């Protein structure tokens, strides 16, 4: 089970409304390479890992990704909370407002809703870990795209930090993959 800790893993305090950036950033919530997909993918794959190391690593990284969903959600919320309907419409978020008002809704930056096909589980530990390594690299690349699209240091700081977490996770998955290759 899980128990909530009432704090963010890394502080977020965005002072400037930015609907353009919110529209792009949402992909790290509900996109193919986003944090929701990562969390659910790892927590779903962990049951069929061949030993306790894999169960531990996928549980602990999957749990951290839940904290990253909260960080991304907080960023989207803070970027949009003071917007008027007119501002949302001008930023191309009118359709989003019509469906969800200001409720968070996991989509990619094109508005395509989250789908469980992003889980990408095969049940083969080597294939699953390779998928996870790729997922971390893809998320790193998307974070870099997002960093390149803003000048707001309140947004760049957390994005740099989340990008770095993808690098650490990639390396931990890679270590486990290399180990499994020798024993499976």
């Amino acid at each position, binding site marked *: 089970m899980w128990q909530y800790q009432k704090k963010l893993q890394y502080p977020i305090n965005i002072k400037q409304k930015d609907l353009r950036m919110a529209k792009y950033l949402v992909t790290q919530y509900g996109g193919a390479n986003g944090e929701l997909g990562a969390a659910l993918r790892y927590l779903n794959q962990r049951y069929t890992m061949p030993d306790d190391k894999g169960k531990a690593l996928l549980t602990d990284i999957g749990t951290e990704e839940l904290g990253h969903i909260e960080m991304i*959600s907080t960023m989207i919320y803070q970027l949009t909370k003071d917007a008027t309907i007119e501002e949302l419409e001008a930023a191309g978020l009118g359709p989003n407002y019509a469906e969800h008002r200001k409720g968070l809704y996991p989509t990619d930056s094109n508005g395509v809703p989250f789908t469980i096909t992003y889980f990408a589980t095969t049940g083969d530990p080597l294939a699953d870990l390779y998928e996870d390594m790729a997922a971390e690299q893809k998320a790193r690349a998307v974070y870099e795209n997002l960093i390149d699209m803003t000048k707001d240091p309140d947004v760049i700081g957390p994005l740099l930090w989340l990008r770095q977490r993808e690098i650490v996770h990639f390396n931990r998955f890679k270590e486990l993959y290399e180990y499994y290759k020798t024993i499976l």
Partner: protein
Amino acid sequence: MNNHFNYYNALNRNFFREDLYNAENNFSLNNNVNNSNSLNNILYGPYEGFIKGNLFKNLYQQYKNYQPAIITPKNEQEQALFNLDQIQFAMHELNLYLDNYPNDRDTFNQFVMLRNYYNKLLMEYENKYDAINVNSISLNNVPFGWVEQTWPWDRGNM
């Protein structure tokens, strides 16, 4: 690579300066002279690791010439939360490492030191400010502080 990041400036600003000073000597990085396999060359200190998002020197990859954000707590509570964040992050990084290398005794010993320090900081924080966990013994009266104390996305600070 810029390794300076105002670690010592941050310590000077620190309301728990003594604690973090001890933490740095214990966990991080200087004086384990008897330990030939010293982690001091492998790990960043809790502050530098936290702002970078990576405790492991060999894994850190800077993006272009962006530097990690310098986090500046505005009051005593924010500083206390920041201390908690740093130690918890270092502990989590060692946790992930130990998942792959559960027999690494040096890393485990560092993990235990961080855990003990974290538990102390957590109890101090919850008693003085807000509950982080719903099972905190600081939640001992109505109105139920879990509800009333500000939620993380509304803090507008740390």
